[in-house]
């Protein structure tokens, strides 16, 4: 099985640690990962801002960049949902099946226990596109519960949007900020050290809000927890 990583543009530039974690995790589980270097972006921002025609060349390009692989793994619920749901509406032609990371681990590899160690209190934020578009369900929490040393605590108002919403965060900054502030409050209330999610764009908004207000909560991508081991934690 030849699988390719679609790291996403946000992760490539701002959160390389997530891509690195995904690669280390998959390799640790015996998967051979390829990274087609021509890859860039799925076009979601253009599409969701009201410029679907600007997303077409990117959907076409995605099809070309990932042709010939058996599967594509994406460490982002939002980009994964966009490629799976919207690309077929924009361009014709078969693309390999696209899996969000937790779907790939549980549905394809059939593992819940990935051998991770993360001795911290963690709250899980089910991002809107992961839960409502991809319907990843309890896959992320099943994986988290199997992590050694990790204590999963409940996040109040977990199902509520954090207010990022792509360009929504700049077009409606006040409402977006109010939503983000409430999410941070809930994360702090949960008593967790880390707020974890499978989408760095949401975490960028939540984490940026937390840092500005000095709230005692750190954000982390799920892949980085799953990739952590005793060696990396103690290192």
């Amino acid at each position: 099985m030849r699988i390719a990583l679609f790291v996403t543009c946000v992760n490539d530039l701002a959160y390389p640690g997530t891509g690195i974690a995904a690669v280390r995790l998959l390799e640790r589980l015996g998967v051979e990962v390829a990274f087609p270097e021509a890859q860039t972006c799925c076009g979601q921002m253009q599409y969701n801002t009201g410029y679907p025609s600007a997303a077409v060349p990117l959907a076409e390009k995605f099809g070309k960049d990932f042709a010939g692989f058996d599967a594509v793994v994406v460490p982002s619920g939002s980009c994964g949902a966009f490629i799976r749901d919207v690309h077929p509406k924009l361009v014709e032609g078969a693309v390999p099946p696209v899996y969000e990371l937790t779907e790939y681990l549980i549905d394809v590899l059939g593992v819940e226990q990935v051998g991770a160690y993360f001795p911290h209190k963690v709250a899980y934020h089910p991002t809107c596109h992961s839960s409502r578009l991809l319907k990843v369900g309890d896959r992320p929490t099943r994986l988290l519960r199997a992590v050694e040393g990790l204590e999963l605590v409940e996040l109040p108002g977990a199902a509520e949007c954090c207010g990022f919403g792509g360009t929504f965060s700049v077009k409606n900054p006040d409402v977006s900020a109010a939503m983000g502030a409430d999410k941070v409050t809930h994360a702090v209330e949960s008593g967790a050290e880390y707020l974890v999610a499978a989408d760095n764009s949401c975490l960028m908004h939540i984490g940026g809000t937390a840092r500005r207000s000095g709230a005692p909560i750190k954000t982390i991508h799920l892949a980085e927890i799953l990739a952590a081991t005793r060696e990396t934690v103690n290192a």
Partner: protein
Amino acid sequence: MTGVYVGMPAFPTAARAATRNAQLRANLTRATHTIRDRRARAVAELEDWEGLRQAGKAIKDETLAHLDDYLLQLEAKVTEAGGTVHWARDADEANRIVTELIRATGGSDDQPHEVVKVKSMATQEIGLNEHLAAEGISAYETDLAELIVQLGDDLPSHILVPAIHKNRTEIRDIFRERMGEWGRPAPEGLTDTPADLAEAARLHLREKFLRAKVAVSGANFMVAETGTLVVLESEGNGRMCLTLPETLISVVGIEKIVPTWRDLEVFLQLLPRSSTAERMNPYTTMWTGTHEGDGPKQFHLVLLDNGRTQTLADEVGRQALRCIRCSACLNVCPVYERAGGHAYGSAYPGPIGAILTPQLRGTASELDASLPYASSLCGACFEACPVAIDIPEVLLHLRERVGREAKEHGGHRLERAAMKAATYAMTHPAVYRAAENAAVRARKLIPKKVPFGAGKAWTETRDLPELPEQTFRQWWKETHR
């Protein structure tokens, strides 16, 4: 549409005030979360909810596809049963028809015209009360929440709970100060307990029910096969209006039709559970034409278009006409919860308003053009909608329309250029890599607070992430090649 919302600022500006009003936000959060939780429980009781939802969607779609036939059938049946049908193309026409019908019932300078009203979204949409007031006719709202809004010289901010933005103390103050100007004053020493407030409203309204010669209503449904209209309500005040006065005038949007009584079965389950979290609403009133010695002696049905046929012509957008006005989408919407209902600038706030209003009114005004962006696309509204309106899909469709229309007038120039530039860079890997490398090299120069443009909107309340020293791509090159 209505006069009262004209000249309102675009959504982001109007929402700003609401996000900074702590009392308003607290009122809204408490109320929406209560309804939201109760609704989730009421829906979970039914094993076949998804099936009902799909049935509701299918019935509405079939009806909309043959709307002309069903409307003619309805007209024939209403006429046969002794009612009179009027067709109104827009708000002005509907308001004129209603005014003439009220004047035709008599009245004089000694006994000015007064009408009692059943809570109705259609009459709010056309601004009927304001129009009647300008014509010297007093229209009294009899739904408790509508009464609060009317007495407070306010605008409704929720479809089902128009006074959701007010708490009990604020309501008591409005009753104390204003009831006397409109009729029976509030009792001495009125407290803010719900029972006391309800009793004050009951006494105030009783006078109106017994005196009014004319009632104005909308309808939740119209059954084509018999010409029957249906109103669902919780308080019974609507039924008083629908049965006591001599003349009943119902203003109803043309999309409110269902073909048969059998179809009602589906909606009488979907609507109460979705809106008030009740298994069945307390009052369901049905009326067909006129009957000797029972109910109103004259019945007029004003069928309202007001942008509905143009909405029907849009293949993606027409699903908004399935809406049964349950307000489930408002109660789960995180944007509505923070922005409040007024920011949406129409009788229809929340997610449904964001897609319905720009279709009914068009997107020429700044406010209407801003509504399709008043969503983070979280999808909670679609999940909650009992007739499965894919609100995010319509939002995106309308964003494209707004962008296209803006292009014709030279608007949205920067945004369009930015999107095109992004696509250009993303489809030219060398350009993309160069831009990425430049960003990483300049990472120390990116300020914590950007003073202009999109960066300002972002960094006013949030820190930007610190860019790492190396992109993923660079790491991959070093480790895997």
